[in-house]
């Protein structure tokens, strides 16, 4: 395996190329399928395998930028990208990210003055609430709300109740339309507010924010799930360009590692994006819910480690996220193979 080691000049160490490509592949599949960047998987994975942490986030952003170009292009060909919506979300996201980052720096100053890890604890608790809350809500949506909606549709003479999205869209002040997403009219201020919040969370947690933005597109703006995945990847691409430049300027990017991860991610993204074709919107949401739930468990273990000071918990946290990401990857690949074979058989049978 040593023959696959390559010297990384900025990191000043040797690292296994196959490992970099494998991490990239896993994140590529999940990113292409869920429309996320995958920083919450890459950073613990690199940590587990000994990659220098000061360079992890910049290297990750660089690879995410490249990968999201590949995935966005493919989603675009499938008609899954609402370009207009993607661009206009930036008007809310960018100030949100800045405010989130300013709050982190303020908490950091408070922490240094008081000698406590205020930033670490605040970030972890925010992660736990967001990830577990999102996972539980999306699972509830799949198992309970979806069945209620379908049952109501089957009732004769049923009166269509206004959903949250209908109520949000009812406000017509400074209305804008997104025909690609079947949105006739929505106030631009709603779009600004939703993505300001997403940007704030992303700036506060120091991540791309795809895990909160994709569900926001689905549940608050009312974009069909597959379209939300592709549009979110487009936004990840724009964020990734900015993050890649900024963190490279900070000196936190190992370019060679990022390129090797990109090769793996590009192959993975092809698989992840293609799988979207075969799995219905609610199926994507359920798998996403499971993924973020395990990510939340991983952060719980890290928070327990910060309280109990047990290195075993930190390692367990890394393995939980890597393990769940690998299993999810496998599920997506298997579903793709099974569905693709079914499609080929149906074509041969002339259906």
């Amino acid at each position, binding site marked *: 395996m040593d023959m696959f080691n390559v010297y990384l000049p900025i990191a000043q160490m040797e690292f296994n190329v196959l490992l970099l490509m494998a991490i990239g592949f896993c994140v590529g599949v999940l990113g292409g399928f869920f429309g996320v960047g995958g920083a919450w998987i890459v950073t613990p994975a690199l940590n587990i395998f000994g990659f220098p942490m000061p360079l992890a986030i910049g290297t990750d952003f660089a690879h995410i*930028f*490249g990968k999201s*170009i590949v995935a966005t292009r493919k989603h675009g060909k499938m008609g899954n990208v609402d370009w207009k919506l993607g661009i206009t979300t930036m008007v809310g996201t960018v100030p949100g990210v800045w405010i989130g980052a300013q709050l982190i720096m303020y908490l950091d100053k408070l922490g240094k003055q008081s000698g406590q890890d205020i930033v670490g604890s605040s970030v972890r608790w925010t992660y736990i609430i967001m990830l577990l809350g999102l996972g539980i809500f999306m699972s509830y949506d799949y198992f309970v709300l979806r069945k209620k909606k379908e049952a109501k549709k089957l009732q004769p003479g049923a009166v269509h109740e206004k959903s949250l999205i209908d109520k949000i869209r009812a406000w017509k002040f400074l209305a804008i339309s997104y025909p690609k997403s079947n949105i006739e009219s929505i106030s631009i201020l709603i779009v600004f507010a939703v993505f300001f919040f997403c940007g704030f969370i992303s700036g506060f947690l120091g991540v791309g924010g795809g895990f909160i933005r994709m569900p926001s597109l689905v549940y608050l703006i009312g974009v*069909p799930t597959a379209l939300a995945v592709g549009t979110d990847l487009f936004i990840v691409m724009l964020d990734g360009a*900015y993050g890649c430049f900024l963190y490279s300027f900070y000196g936190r990017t190992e*370019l060679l590692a990022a*390129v090797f991860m990109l090769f793996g991610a590009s192959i993975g993204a092809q698989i992840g994006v293609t799988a979207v074709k075969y799995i219905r919107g609610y199926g994507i949401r359920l798998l996403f819910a499971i993924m973020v739930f395990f990510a939340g468990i991983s952060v719980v273990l890290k928070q327990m480690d910060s309280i109990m000071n047990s290195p075993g918990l930190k390692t367990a946290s890394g393995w939980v996220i890597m393990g769940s990401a690998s299993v999810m990857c496998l599920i997506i690949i298997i579903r793709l193979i099974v569905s693709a074979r079914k499609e080929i058989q149906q074509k041969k049978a002339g259906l």
Partner: protein
Amino acid sequence: MKFNDIKSILPWIIILFVLFPLSFFLGVEKEGLLNVRVDTSDLEGIRLWLTNLYNDHRFLFAVVVTLTMATVGITIAFLTDIILKVLGLEVSKIQHHE
């Protein structure tokens, strides 16, 4: 140029020429900068060039990294399209089912 044409590209102009540069300058904090000089004594070729850029011209290093990742990403995207077309696995627009 008609007002309607300008209106349609206004978000692009705001994002590219106002928000991105503004967020870059607002986003750069001194605490974020990694003040490390990488030892170049055992390096040669492109590794040496890149590391010299990293040590001495951080802004250019950032430009090179961003352009490299963009170029590699776009190249892989187009090559994949060609390979999938040759194999008959080209994707087309899908129906969106919830």
